[in-house]
């Protein structure tokens, strides 16, 4: 592999994703000011009084929800990360790119750079808004850094799932129905909106198997409890994410090979 060439390709491809986003004003607005924000603001205010502080183990519902909303943002972003590749596949742009002497991984890598950058910015936007509503991450800037790292590690696996779907579906209708099929249960069968202890037993069992739960359980103490409670959770999340990412990347690589082979 010729490194200067690789760099030239990947930068040009990444610039294309940025340009595409910046040309779609609406889409940019909705990407940066995620619909997830409304969850934070509306649900946060709506359930403020209905939620039981004892069950939540948090000072208020808004601060409980912030961690969940951060991870939901990562989820949405990651699962949508393959959409542009899906369109490229359908309209022949992918084939055009693949007919040039680029390294086969360049397109994927450029997409990752783009999705990760957007995800990072969104995490900051969400935490910023939460701050305006009085939620200050108790572990400070370092904690925010750890939240970003965990979020991106989760995003890597999710984006791989999305790209694998983009490369293997027959039509984009299939893609979007699979997306809906995946994302809602991932959110509701996790500790995003309510703690596991408040769930019926069968839901608890399913949420326990959901990587999202582990990620949220690491992010939340970083916001509301402090390092002591957070460190074991973060360590656990890193182990789970390593396994999750390995599986997703393997599946993604297989789907990609099959699609361009």
């Amino acid at each position, binding site marked *: 592999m010729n490194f200067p060439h690789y760099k*030239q390709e990947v930068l040009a491809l990444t610039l294309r994703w940025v340009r*595409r986003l910046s040309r779609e004003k609406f889409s940019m607005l909705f990407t940066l000011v995620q619909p997830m924000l409304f969850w934070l603001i509306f649900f946060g205010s709506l359930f403020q009084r209905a939620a039981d502080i004892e069950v939540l183990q948090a000072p208020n519902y808004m601060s409980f929800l912030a961690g969940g909303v951060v991870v939901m943002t990562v989820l949405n972003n990651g699962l949508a990360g393959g959409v542009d590749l899906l369109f490229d596949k359908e309209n022949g742009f992918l084939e055009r*790119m693949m*007919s040039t002497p*680029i390294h086969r991984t360049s397109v994927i890598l450029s997409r990752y750079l783009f999705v990760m950058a957007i995800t990072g910015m969104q995490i900051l936007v969400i935490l910023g808004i939460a701050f305006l509503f009085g939620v200050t991450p108790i572990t400070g800037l370092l904690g925010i850094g750890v939240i970003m790292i965990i979020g991106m590690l989760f995003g890597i696996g999710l984006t791989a799932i999305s790209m694998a779907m983009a490369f293997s579906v027959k039509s984009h209708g299939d893609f979007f129905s699979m997306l809906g099929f995946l994302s809602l249960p991932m959110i509701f069968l996790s500790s995003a909106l309510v703690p596991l202890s408040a769930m019926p037993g069968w839901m608890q069992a399913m949420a326990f198997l959901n990587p999202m739960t582990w990620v949220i359980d690491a992010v939340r103490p970083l916001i509301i409890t402090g390092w002591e409670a957070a460190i074991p959770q973060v360590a656990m999340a890193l182990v789970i994410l390593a396994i999750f990412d390995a599986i997703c990347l393997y599946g993604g690589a297989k789907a990609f090979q099959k699609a361009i082979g």
Partner: protein
Amino acid sequence: MNPAIEAKSLRKTYGSVTAIDDLSLTIHSGEIFGLLGPNGAGKSTTLRILITVLKPTSGTATVLGHDVVEEADTVRSLIGYVPQERAIDRFLTGREHLELLGDLYHLPKAHAQERIKELLKLVDLEEQADRAAKTYSGGMKRKLDIACGLLPNPKIVFLDEPTLGLDVQSRLRIWDYIRQLREQGITIVMTTNYLEEADQLCDRLAIIDGGKIKVIGSPKELKAGLGGDRLILTVKESQLEKLDQLSEGVKPLPYVRDIRKIDNGLDIRVESPEKSLPGVLEVANRIDCQIDGIEYHRPRLDDVFVSFTGHAIKGEYPEVVVEE
């Protein structure tokens, strides 16, 4: 000189569908080579294998001496590709498309800018170069497509149905570009399902149908190979029983080479319609067979197509029809 492209027994299957089957061909340097066939014939599949984006199920192909599977990267750096679909990113401007491709072909920036300027001029898109492609007409998109294919200064350009869906003027324009490329020594490989395009533009062509090559040759050779002009007689239904008699009577005439029965008449190959027509009509008169229609024409590519595939490429029909 080594051939530009050599394909040996290429085969591509998708599950139970065989897209191309035992396809072999040689394309010479500097020629315009056409793959002519109806929808679903396997033209794009063949092209995709040659440009390395699709691996053949079996068989091999080389482009400028490099294997399309083993040395795919080398092949990619030597060719340009203009896909069948308008592979355009609607949010990018024309210039941004070319800049992106410049980087994908690893051109140095200054050289790329130079080349982009030249190409925008060649395809006459200078004015629209900085507009988003979603504001382009179909013809403008096609021109941008072609500029993209030419950007790397390729030795071989592959064009998949370059004039599909364009108006007559744009089509002629694109034929012009293609001929200009040949002047510069570039080899052109294109697909088409327009007979006229294959006939006028291609130096040599392969007729492909059902994933198989039926015949390869220059349009002239192929037409000459049919042996003579066509004279087609049609009769009314009431006269159909006299066809055998008519056929017997015409057969011994001079200038007549071959006779085939068609649904409502005879399809006769003759050396010259002018010389053979009086004789044929005289036979018809003698046996009192009333002729309903006569048409004749020089052999055309559609005749070649029918004779090698057994069907017409589309509903295209002859122009010289003399009613009696």
